[in-house]
C-alpha cells in the first residue's frame, strides 16, 4: 500500500490550501478528490473554465486558479477522479479510481469534504427539472449551460449570485421566489456591527441585488406554501406572496436555503457532532486547529462548519500547520507564528456569518414539511410516515430503518438525514442532539465487485 505523511480528502479550497501548506512544510501529501479536475464545487473546473466564461462567473470564481496552481508541485500527489469509500484506523483510505479500487495510508488525515445543499423538501421537489442551486452553478461553471426558464426558490446570497450570473449571460431567471421576510432582515440588523467587518462581502451582495433590479427580474419575498407543479417534470412554481396566490411557469427550478456540512466521512470515523441552532444543522466538534476527538483526524472547510470558500482556505492552512507540527516538521513556536495571521484573517472572514444566518434563515415549511411531502428521495418516504414512526415509539433516525426504508437508499441519508432528525425531534419533544443522526458506515459510496476485484484481502474486508 502506498504510504505518505497526510491524506487530504477533497480538492476544494480547504483541501487545496491544506495540501499546499503541508507540502510547504515538507510533508508528502496524497490529495484525493472525486472530480476529474481540482477546484471543489466552488471552483469547479476553474483551470479549464476561467478563460471561457470568467467574465460571467466573476473574480470570486477565477481566483480559485491560485489554489489549483499551488497544488501542482512536488510533494503533492493529486489523485483526481478518486471516490473515497472507506477511512479506517491508522489511517488507511480506500478509494476507487479509473474503475479500480486502491488504498493509501498515512498517520494523519485532513477531511475537506465541503458542503451539501440543505435538504429542501417541498411538494414536487423530486420532479425532473428541479435541482439544487448548487447544481445550477455546476451546470454553468463546468458545462456552460444556462436554464432558459428557471425560477430560483429559497433564500440566501447564493440565489442572488446565480441570478446575477444568469443576467450577465443573457438569460435572466423568470423569477426569484424568496422565503425570507422583512422581519428576518430586521432581526439580522442586530448583527450589523459584526457584519460591517465583513463589509466587502456585504457590498458584493448589494451590487448583485442592483444587477437584478436593473434586469427587472421579479422578486417575490416572504413566500409561503411553495410547491412545484408538473406532469412528469417541473412546469410551474406555486406559492403565496404579498397575500396572493401566485403561479410562475418555468421548466427548471433551482432550490436553495443554505448549505450544511457534508459530514458523511467525518461521521464514519467517529468524529462527534453537535447541533448548531443558529445554522440548523449538525456540525462536527473541532478545536481551533480543526482537530477532532479522533486522534490524527482533522477537518477543514465547510465540512467542519459552514463559512464559505475564503474561510475554508484559511482553515485548510491552519489544519496543515498543526499536522506538520505533530509530525515533527515544524516547532510549536513556528506553527504558532505562522498560524497567528491566519487566525486573525479567519476572524475577519467569519464576521459576516451571524448576519447572514439571521437574514436568510432556512425555510420553515421545508424544515418541517407537510405530511404528504417526500422526505427521503431515494426510498420515497413521506414526512407523515416519519411522524407515524415517532408515534409508534421511534426516537432516533437509526430506528426509522426498523420501520421503513428512510435513509437506506443509495444517497445514505445525505438529502434526508437532517429532515428526519428534525421531524423526530418535533414529534418526541427531544432535542436534535438527543435524537441524533444516521450511523454512517463504509462504503461511503457504492463500490462494484469489478472495482474490488483488483484489491487485496484487507481492503475487501473493509468494504463488507
Amino acid at each position, binding site marked *: 500500500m502506498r504510504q505518505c505523511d497526510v491524506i487530504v480528502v477533497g480538492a476544494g479550497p480547504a483541501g487545496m490550501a491544506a495540501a499546499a501548506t503541508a507540502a510547504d512544510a515538507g510533508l508528502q501529501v496524497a490529495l484525493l478528490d472525486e472530480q476529474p479536475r481540482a477546484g471543489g464545487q466552488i471552483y469547479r473546473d476553474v483551470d479549464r473554465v476561467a478563460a471561457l466564461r470568467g467574465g460571467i462567473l466573476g473574480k470570486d470564481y477565477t481566483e480559485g486558479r491560485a489554489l489549483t496552481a499551488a497544488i501542482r508541485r512536488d510533494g503533492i500527489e493529486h489523485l483526481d477522479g478518486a471516490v473515497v469509500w472507506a477511512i479506517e484506523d491508522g489511517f488507511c483510505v480506500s478509494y476507487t479510481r479509473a474503475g479500480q479500487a486502491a488504498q493509501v495510508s498515512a498517520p494523519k488525515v485532513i477531511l475537506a469534504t465541503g458542503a*451539501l*445543499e440543505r435538504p429542501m423538501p417541498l411538494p414536487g421537489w423530486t420532479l425532473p*427539472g428541479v*435541482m439544487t442551486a448548487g*447544481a445550477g452553478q455546476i*451546470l454553468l461553471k463546468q458545462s456552460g*449551460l*444556462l436554464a432558459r426558464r428557471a425560477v430560483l426558490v429559497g433564500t440566501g446570497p447564493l440565489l442572488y449570485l446565480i441570478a446575477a450570473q444568469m443576467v450577465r449571460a443573457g438569460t435572466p431567471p423568470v423569477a426569484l421566489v424568496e422565503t425570507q421576510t422583512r422581519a428576518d432582515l430586521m432581526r439580522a440588523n442586530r448583527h450589523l456591527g459584526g457584519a460591517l467587518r465583513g463589509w466587502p462581502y456585504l457590498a458584493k451582495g448589494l451590487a448583485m441585488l442592483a444587477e437584478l433590479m436593473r434586469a427587472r427580474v421579479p422578486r417575490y419575498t416572504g413566500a409561503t406554501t411553495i410547491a412545484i407543479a408538473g406532469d412528469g417534470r417541473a412546469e410551474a412554481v406555486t406559492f403565496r406572496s404579498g397575500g396572493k396566490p401566485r403561479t410562475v411557469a418555468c421548466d427548471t427550478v433551482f432550490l436553495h436555503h443554505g448549505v450544511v456540512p457534508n459530514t458523511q466521512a467525518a461521521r464514519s470515523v467517529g468524529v462527534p457532532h453537535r447541533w448548531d441552532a443558529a445554522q440548523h444543522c449538525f456540525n462536527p466538534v473541532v478545536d481551533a486547529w480543526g482537530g477532532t476527538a479522533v486522534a490524527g483526524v482533522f477537518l477543514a472547510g465547510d465540512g467542519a462548519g459552514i463559512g464559505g470558500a475564503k474561510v475554508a482556505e484559511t482553515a485548510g492552512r491552519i489544519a496543515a500547520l498543526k499536522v506538520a507540527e505533530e509530525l515533527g516538521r515544524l516547532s510549536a513556536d513556528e506553527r504558532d507564528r505562522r498560524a497567528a495571521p491566519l487566525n486573525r484573517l479567519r476572524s475577519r472572514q467569519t464576521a459576516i456569518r451571524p448576519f447572514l444566518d439571521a437574514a436568510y434563515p432556512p425555510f420553515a415549511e421545508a424544515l418541517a414539511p407537510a405530511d404528504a411531502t417526500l422526505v427521503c428521495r431515494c426510498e*420515497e418516504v413521506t414526512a407523515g410516515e416519519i411522524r407515524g414512526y415517532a408515534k409508534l415509539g421511534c426516537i432516533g433516525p437509526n430506528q426509522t430503518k426498523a420501520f421503513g426504508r428512510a435513509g437506506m437508499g*443509495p444517497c445514505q441519508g445525505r438529502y434526508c438525514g437532517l429532515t428526519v432528525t428534525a421531524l423526530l425531534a418535533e414529534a418526541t419533544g427531544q432535542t436534535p442532539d438527543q435524537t441524533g443522526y444516521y450511523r454512517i458506515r463504509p462504503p461511503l459510496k457504492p463500490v462494484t465487485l469489478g472495482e474490488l476485484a483488483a484489491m487485496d484481502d484487507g481492503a475487501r474486508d473493509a468494504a463488507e
Partner: protein
Amino acid sequence: MKTASPFLELEAAPARATVWFDGEPLDLPQGANLAAALLAAGVAVFRHTPASGAPRGPFCLMGACFDCLVEIDGVVRQACMLEVEDGLRVTRPHEAEDSGAPV
C-alpha cells in the same frame, strides 16, 4: 422521452461524440459531464424510482443524490460523475435494484 432542451449552451463544443441513450443516438460534446450533456440534449428523465416508478433526473450534479443513475455496460452509475465518450451506450436502469451492484 426527449423534449426540446430547457438549457442553452454558451459555447458549442467543437469535438462531438455519439452517445446512445435508450437506443437513440445523441450528438454530445466529447469529454463533457455526461449528466449535463444529456440534460442539454433534452433528456429530462434519467431513471424511474424502484419504489413507485416516479420519473427522476439529476438533482445535485455532485455525486451526492444518486438521482442521475443510468446503466452502462450492465452497471448502474451516476451520470454526473462520468464524462461523454464516443460510442457510450446509456440506458435507464433496468432493474429495480439501483445501487450499482454494491458489496
